């Protein structure tokens, strides 16, 4: 399926790529995505269209190659970003600032519509260089949660000037990523291998639950929650290991799966087809993890770890359907995993999936779009 991939060199290292969410009743695949760059003197937030495959070739353009619609300067590295809605994108900066950009679709321009200066900072917020990198952002319109190198957690509301809630010193190490667990609860991962749950309903500035890796406290870089089964959480670590956690029980991961050879930068369950999971890494690979097929005769890449088999048994009532992700019998349930990038060189920093479409961006200054993921 590699022929389906369209590449474009964009002369900037891509740190983030995100599909624009589809309207609720949409049937067509996504056609627009945003990217952010890092490590440039002049970093940019850009919006691209992938056009309609049927109308490809108009104006002599290569069919399917992403076309730049508009871009805007961004102060600092783009550390993370997410669409708040169809028009607004929340961007986290290495300067500690969090900006909401608006994409004006009538005249294809971008503008900053709101900005929280130095939402993350060290010691002195007013010092000229006191900002601390904001490493992660997650939105649930109108709420925006950010985490940073300062170990701080901010809860913003898109239309409010000041933070709704700030937890200073929430973590003594760097918080690398954040995601929503439920509407009032978030999950964070940090640089000492911990996964924490925070509940905004509680006034205490303490996590409601802490999970951690055993042995060497390998930093965790990314986290995603299963879209339907909220107790299943996937994280990616500095050693490239994919950890699957069941946050209903225990404090350690249910399984550790090894494919990458260096930092895993992002992990995403497929939003509507969560038997599929995608991860990308500093080692230049992008793995597609597929638990949907039963392929008992194929060799397995799965290797068990993290805890003993006795620890987890699916004997609990109300568990007629056991997710393939939590199953721990390697002889019965196998996972098919495929590397989608054959000639890997530099880091794949980001990926996003929506419907049949995959977009990813690399340090080799290229963006790739695959519009027939399951073809």
């Amino acid at each position: 399926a590699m022929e389906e991939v369209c590449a474009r060199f964009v002369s900037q290292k891509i740190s983030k790529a995100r599909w624009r969410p589809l309207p609720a009743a949409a049937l067509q695949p996504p056609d627009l995505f945003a990217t952010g760059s890092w490590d440039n003197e002049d970093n940019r937030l850009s919006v691209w269209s992938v056009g309609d495959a049927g109308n490809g070739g108009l104006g002599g353009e290569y069919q399917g190659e992403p076309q730049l619609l508009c871009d805007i300067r961004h102060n600092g590295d783009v550390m993370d970003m997410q669409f708040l809605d169809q028009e607004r994108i929340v961007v986290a900066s290495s300067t500690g600032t969090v900006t909401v950009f608006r994409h004006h679709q009538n005249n294809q321009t971008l503008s900053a519509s709101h900005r929280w200066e130095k939402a993350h900072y060290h010691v002195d917020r007013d010092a000229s260089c006191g900002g601390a990198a904001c490493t992660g952002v997650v939105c649930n319109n109108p709420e925006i949660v950010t985490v940073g190198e300062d170990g701080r957690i901010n809860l913003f509301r898109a239309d409010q000037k000041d933070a709704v809630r700030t937890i200073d010193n929430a973590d003594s190490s760097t918080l690398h990523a954040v995601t929503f667990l439920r509407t009032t609860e978030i999950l964070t991962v940090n640089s000492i291998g911990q996964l924490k749950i925070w509940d905004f309903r509680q006034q205490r500035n303490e996590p409601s639950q802490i999970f951690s890796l055993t042995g060497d406290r390998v930093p965790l870089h990314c986290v995603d929650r299963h879209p339907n089964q909220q107790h299943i959480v996937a994280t990616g670590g500095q050693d490239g290991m994919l950890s699957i956690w069941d946050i209903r029980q225990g404090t350690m991961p249910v399984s550790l799966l090894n494919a990458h050879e260096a930092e895993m930068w992002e992990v995403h369950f497929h939003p509507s087809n969560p038997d599929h999971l995608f991860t990308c890494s500093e080692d230049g690979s992008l793995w597609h993890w597929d638990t949907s097929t039963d392929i008992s005769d194929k060799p397995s890449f799965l290797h068990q770890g993290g805890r003993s088999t006795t620890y987890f048994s699916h004997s609990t009532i109300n568990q007629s359907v056991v997710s393939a992700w939590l199953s721990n019998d390697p002889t019965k349930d196998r996972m098919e995993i495929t590397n989608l990038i054959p000639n890997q060189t530099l880091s794949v920093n980001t990926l996003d999936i929506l419907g049949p479409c995959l977009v990813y961006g690399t340090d080799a200054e290229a963006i790739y779009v695959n519009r027939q993921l399951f073809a």
Partner: protein
Amino acid sequence: PPLPQVVPGADPASRQLCFEWGPAEVLVCETLFGRGPALTGSDAAGSGEGKPGSSCVFVVRRDQDIYIQTLRKLFNESHGIFVGLQRCEGLAGRARRAQLVQVSKNYRSVIRACMEDMHQAAVSARDPALHSQYSTQVSILSAMELIWNLCEILFVEAAAAGPLLLRLLDWVRLHVCDVDNMVREVLSSENPSKHKLFWDVVDVFVLQGRMDEARHLLSKEASANPTSMTMYRILDDLMKKMPVPNLGNTQTLTEMELKWQHWHEECQRYLQDGTFASNSHMESICKILLGDENAILEKKELMTTWYHFLVTRLLYSHPTVKPMELRFYAQSSMDMFLGEEGSPEPLDTILMAAFEFELHQVIKECSIALSNWWFVAHLTDLLDHCKLLQSHNLYFGSNMREFLLLEYASGLFSHHSLWQLGVDYFDHCPEFGRVYLELHIERIPLNTEQKALKVLRICEQRQMHEQVRSICKIMAMKALRNNRLGSALSWSIRAKDAAFATLISDRFLKDYCERGCFSDLDLIDNLGPSMLLSDRLTFLGKYREFHRLYGEKRFSEAAKLLLMLMTAHIAPCSFWMTLLTDALPLLEQKEVIFSAEQTYELMRCLEDLTAGKSEKQEFQNDDVETMKVEMLRLALARNLARVIVKEGTLEGS
């Protein structure tokens, strides 16, 4: 490459320039050194001090093209090809050659893609200065592709007599595109044969050996002009019959030469019997078919370059030219084409060197003429993989391939963003790559932890322990400055930097003594095996464990641990007083916690401490300290009394 560069804003007429070498650039600034008196004398203002020296420092880069935005695509895409080339070994013979030719073609297609982008940029540039800058880049890229293509034919593919000419024809057709507009104009006109450029276009086709296209055009003339029908038929037949070398092995060179001889004689006959005498255009075409140098040279304007002339000349007089004979024809073609007044430009010199198979000369001339290292570095590497540069060692550095790759990669490292590409180039320089990488990687500014992690990964993969330590230390220091003790500790644990871990542990303990509670519990409670990195860190972890046990009211375990911290000398002496004070509440509990033996040990610890102190700092003992010691002594004595009673009772019962 040693192109003269003008330092903008500097005025060498009034001041001298001084400079300082950097890793990939030169710092230049203006100075009055050595000219002071003369300058002040002529200074009209007469301030006596002269004008203050300019405070500007100019950065002069050794590889300017690295900074051209549009070329980033070239650097990134070719990086992938380069890495691929280094990885693919194992094939041999014909397959290997085909593979190398493919790699060469990939490089060229990247150049061409970049050229198209640059051309688009030039077209859409409104600013004339920008437009001319882009246009210059287009012509440089075009020249690079032209040279590369020729090198591909001669060195990488090493085409043999026969196919060689076909390749050279392709090369000329691909690169002489000045005439394309003319061709398009004539072909799209209503009546091509009446167009004033009609015969020019026919000539262009003939000169480039595009026989089918020439015949097609001629047929239009024939149908419009019935009187010349016979003449046309004969010329058309000659053009159709012209033997060409073929790519397969179906005919030998001798067969080809024989056929060609026949055809040549036939052309000769028609020319001599005056068949074309009534039409000068057709006569001149016939002369070209016969390889008449003067007839070909008359079409100089249509060929535009000497190398086009060379290839046309070869086509019609030496179609089976051997690679080693090229040099003679090339030299004479250039001389004939340029005439006496024309002098060769750098591009001509480079192409000539290639035709002469002077590989090193090609690379040398390219290094001088181009403002980037990209071209020579990649071309040389490819030629090296073709095993063409094996014997050549430089009197400095290692070999030419490595020298050029090092230069190119150093340029990449001087760029704020492209430095990541440089790593793989250094990796494939066996002699000095490692040292270069070590020197350059330490100069990468680390503005976020994420970037630090990327740099760190590069170093760890290559076992560059020194650099790993240095990066972690920098990050740990930054975290410490920002009061992020937890982060600082994580970084020193990653670097296995015991000394720094001790330093941070002391900060934690100091904070504890001042505030009476621990910060960053989430980290200290989760040290795990990394606790063993430094003694102080071990103590910190254990001491925190004591507090946890105490908090959980597991008093006897807490007491045992506390005592152990002192008796096993895990706790630093400076901390003993704090530990003994921590023992106070345990001594005051309702039930007896310390056994008699443990109490004796505690007493010995206290006496050791006070004895050690009284010798050194007898007069510094403040009242609080003395009171503490007294309280401890009292508490210990009472505990001893209670425990003796208790233990005695137990024995007695």
